[in-house]
């Protein structure tokens, strides 16, 4: 039956061993890509005609910003799967995503502020993208706060799952309203936080960093997932050999 792969993915012992096996296959390529991207971005790529070497912050800001949104979406999808089909492994994925997403959202905020600083002259500017990023950080903190406040794992999984789905519906609305609000009060900021039209030598390292960060996310997710799966297993015998190994 075609669904067997789906059911096997849902079985904790299979996922635990699969995650353990796959982690290096994501970790090493991620490391190589990031190192190559850094080398390309910091050394090979020419300085930007407008922002000079300051633009090189994009090689850490853009991947972090991409991570903050991609991880939240992954979390919401995993939570929805967990809620609809009652799959504990899906909830374990969602639980593993949150801290990763939150940490890179914070990194995106700081790097975004550092990048804007030369232009704005201040460390914080209510720029629409930075403001959306800040609100996204609060969504993460709300998710993790709710999860921590509920002792029973199953209830924490399902309640935070609903919050993640409600949150992901609101992310575009928040982004639109923040951009709309910002356009009211200021001319759009001159700085191109968005992906500027840049030369290949500048673009390639950026794509490497984006892919590298994504693979890094999967690697960390797989490590955390094993822990989360274990903590949701009650009496299954398969834990015995896994834990004693």
């Amino acid at each position, binding site marked *: 039956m075609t669904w067997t792969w789906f059911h096997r993915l849902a079985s904790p012992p299979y996922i635990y061993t699969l995650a353990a096996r796959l982690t290096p296959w994501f970790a090493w390529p991620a490391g190589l890509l*990031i190192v190559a991207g850094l080398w390309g971005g*910091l*050394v090979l790529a020419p*300085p930007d005609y407008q*922002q*000079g*070497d*300051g633009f*090189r*912050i994009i090689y*850490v*800001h853009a*991947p*972090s910003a991409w991570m903050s949104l991609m991880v939240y979406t992954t979390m919401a999808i995993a939570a929805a799967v967990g809620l609809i089909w009652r799959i504990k492994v899906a909830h374990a994925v969602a639980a593993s995503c949150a*801290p*990763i997403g939150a*940490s*890179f959202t*914070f*990194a995106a905020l*700081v*790097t975004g502020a*550092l*990048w804007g*600083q*030369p232009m704005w002259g201040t460390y914080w500017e209510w720029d629409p993208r930075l403001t959306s990023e800040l609100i996204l950080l609060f969504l993460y903190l709300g998710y993790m706060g709710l999860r921590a406040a509920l002792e029973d794992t199953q209830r924490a999984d399902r309640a935070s799952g609903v919050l993640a789905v409600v949150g992901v519906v609101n992310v575009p609305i928040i982004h639109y309203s923040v951009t709309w609000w910002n356009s009211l009060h200021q001319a759009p900021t001159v700085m191109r936080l968005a992906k500027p039209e840049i030369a290949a030598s500048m673009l390639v390292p950026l794509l490497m960093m984006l892919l590298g960060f994504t693979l*890094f996310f999967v690697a*960390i997710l797989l*490590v*955390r997932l*094993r*822990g*989360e799966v*274990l*903590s949701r*297993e009650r*009496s299954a015998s398969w*834990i*015995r050999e*896994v*834990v*004693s190994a």
Partner: protein
Amino acid sequence: MNSMSRFFEMGGYAAFVWPAYAITFAAIVLNILWARRSLARSREEARRRLAARGEGA
């Protein structure tokens, strides 16, 4: 040698570029450590639960 020092100046933006890279690198390292610690803690809890069930059952 001066190309090294010129590299670190980052065209005068050193005060912004390097902290940005530092915070991101910190995020990466923190995530690695945090993930490994939470896995180790879960394995330890599972081992303790098994031991407790060992006597209990």
